[in-house]
């Protein structure tokens, strides 16, 4: 056990699964770098260096640099998954899903259902999401609600290095297509991560804080903010439970409902745009299943319904901040 970054945790998960299972391959734009043109081998490891070191250990046969054509290489990964490999394809930014969405939602997500349950599609699409990186509107979105909407896809949003390693290994071993969303601002976060391989099951929420007054449900990077707020408010006498669902599909509705039944107050924090996001989904769930337990109206903390702004001041205002989360918690707590 030692401290590892979110980036190292993901890299270690990939390397350990590639050692364990020869059918695991990695593919994406500059996943190694230096292929197809004069250049340095293993120069990149993906745009932020997550896959660096895999090509020297596993070779070009299993670590593929692809052309800048998501429709082609995501399609190739779906086909490889359907015919016996376990590909981990890197969609550099989730914002690029538009050019390869048919391959994901109408092909990979449907095979099991269309072919009598006989087809397995053990595909993982790793992809970066989230604002705060000064990368403007085409490289900063939180599009996980779109994947969550599609039956047949599993959607994983790790909130910390420990979570990232265990959830990625689970994703690779899963026989269904999994969308694995990495928040680009978390890559340098560090925590204790076991050296051994381990798995975290899907559909089991994690309670990162346990309290009595307010339930905060948060996703990905927002879990970190929610924890900060919970720790701060604990000192002011407001104790919060923070629920990290880990996966939006499958979603652990039981844990969310149980917690709201205990606290009677709910704040949902979602970095995705506010129409049809996880905040509206969970609010609807609680309104339908636990209305009688609510002591205050549900609050949602989300960005506004706009693209992510490029101006840094506006981008900072756009992201749900700990201050906004704190204000929402205080409002539902009546304090």
């Amino acid at each position: 056990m030692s401290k590892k970054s979110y980036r190292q945790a993901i890299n270690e998960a990939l390397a350990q699964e590639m050692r364990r299972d020869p059918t695991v391959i990695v593919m994406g734009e500059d996943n190694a770098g230096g292929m197809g043109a004069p250049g340095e081998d293993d120069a990149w490891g993906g745009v932020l260096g997550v896959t660096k070191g895999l090509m020297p250990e596993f070779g070009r046969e299993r670590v593929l640099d692809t052309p800048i054509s998501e429709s082609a290489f995501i399609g190739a990964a779906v086909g490889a998954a359907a015919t016996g490999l376990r590909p981990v394809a890197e969609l550099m930014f989730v914002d690029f899903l538009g050019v390869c969405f048919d391959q994901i939602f109408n092909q990979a997500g449907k095979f099991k259902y269309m072919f009598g349950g006989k087809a397995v599609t053990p595909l993982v699409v790793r992809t970066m999401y989230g604002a705060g990186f000064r990368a403007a509107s085409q490289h900063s979105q939180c599009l996980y609600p779109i994947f969550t909407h599609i039956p047949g896809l599993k959607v994983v949003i790790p909130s910390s290095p420990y979570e990232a390693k265990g959830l990625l290994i689970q994703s690779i071993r899963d026989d269904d297509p999994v969308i694995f969303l990495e928040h680009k601002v978390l890559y340098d976060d560090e925590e204790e991560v076991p050296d051994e391989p381990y798995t975290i099951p899907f559909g089991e929420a994690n309670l990162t804080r346990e309290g009595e007054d307010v339930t905060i449900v948060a996703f990905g990077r927002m879990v970190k903010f929610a924890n900060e707020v919970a720790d701060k408010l604990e000192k002011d006498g407001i104790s919060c439970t923070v629920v990290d669902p880990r996966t939006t599909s499958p979603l652990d509705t039981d844990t969310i409902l149980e917690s709201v039944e205990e606290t009677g107050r709910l704040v949902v924090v979602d970095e995705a745009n506010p129409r049809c996001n996880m905040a509206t989904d969970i609010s609807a769930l609680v309104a339908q299943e636990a209305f009688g337990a609510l002591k205050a109206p549900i609050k949602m903390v989300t960005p506004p319904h706009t693209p992510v702004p490029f101006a840094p001041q506006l981008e900072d205002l756009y992201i749900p901040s700990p201050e906004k989360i704190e204000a929402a918690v205080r409002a539902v707590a009546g304090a």
Partner: protein
Amino acid sequence: MPKWGLAMSEGTVVAWYLGEGAEVAKGDDLLDIETTKITNVVESPHTGMLRRQAAPEGATLPVGALLAVLAGPEVSDAEIDAFMAEFNANFEVEAAAAEAAAPEPETRDAGGVAINLLAMGDKTQDTAPIILVHGFGGDLNNWMFNQPMLAERHRVIALDLPGHGRSAKDASAGDMAALSATLLASLDALDIGAAHLAGHSLGGAVAMQTALDQPARAASLTLVASAGLGRDINMDYIEGFQRAGRRKDLKQVLQALFADASLVSRDMVDDILKFKRLDGVEQALATIADGAFAGGRQASVLGHRLHELEAPVQVIWGADDQVIPAAHAREVPATVKVHILDGAGHMVHMEKAGEVNALIEAIVAG
């Protein structure tokens, strides 16, 4: 501030049992300290008068920080002030040095099995060291209230059984003979001839098997809430421990380990959940449970053979044990000393650490 377990870096003063001016005997309860993992009592290491409480209730201090000053009445207040000022002025440096010197666990090849162990205390001691063996689902950190204290006068080695802690997760042969063989191989790997063996629960049965197979290797035997003395075993606990995947379920299971269920902290539950998620653990625990507790009964009962041992043997139990009944302590020959401690459950070595440490000290002293 004591250091309980490798991960502890600070602790919070919960409550003082004694006020300034109180006469204190060695072993008296001084105060309760809470860490993220557990709350425990700090016992006085010396006899004297409690002249100062150096930390108020609620204060969070790093390991090694000053908690109390004990001195006779002849020492002046000015001298105590000067001592505290000097201690606190030098503390940062010493804390850093202590941190650097903190013992690190190491991995040894024990007959082809990678065994993780933690050695503490003076290696030059020529008497037999103390070997601590944890129970089913545990790890060497279960001895956090025992190992550092015993290591003040002895060389003390705690190890992780196969399938546990940071040892190899392959426990393909998980029966008592295989576990005992690994314990012997660990002693060989450490060049230890005879050792004072102390085992808890399943680890007690392993130590007992080892002592009976190789009597020359056991300088003494301490069986703490030990398996191997009777047939009963709480399978709700054994199966619940294996099955529980969520914090809430596991917490409920773990509460059966303690007389005081509130000792089960978030961090304790989290650490065990993280252990259970490691590749190979589920299988290893199933193999060991099938070997040791097949059909809901303990497979290996050896207590009646303890008279074969020339080395001293003692049995320690918590009166409120909900995992293995304390009545098993009576299933031993009359030559074995039996100590049943009130107000403690299965984790008697954590809940009544001071008393258990004193009993181990006594058997080691002979």
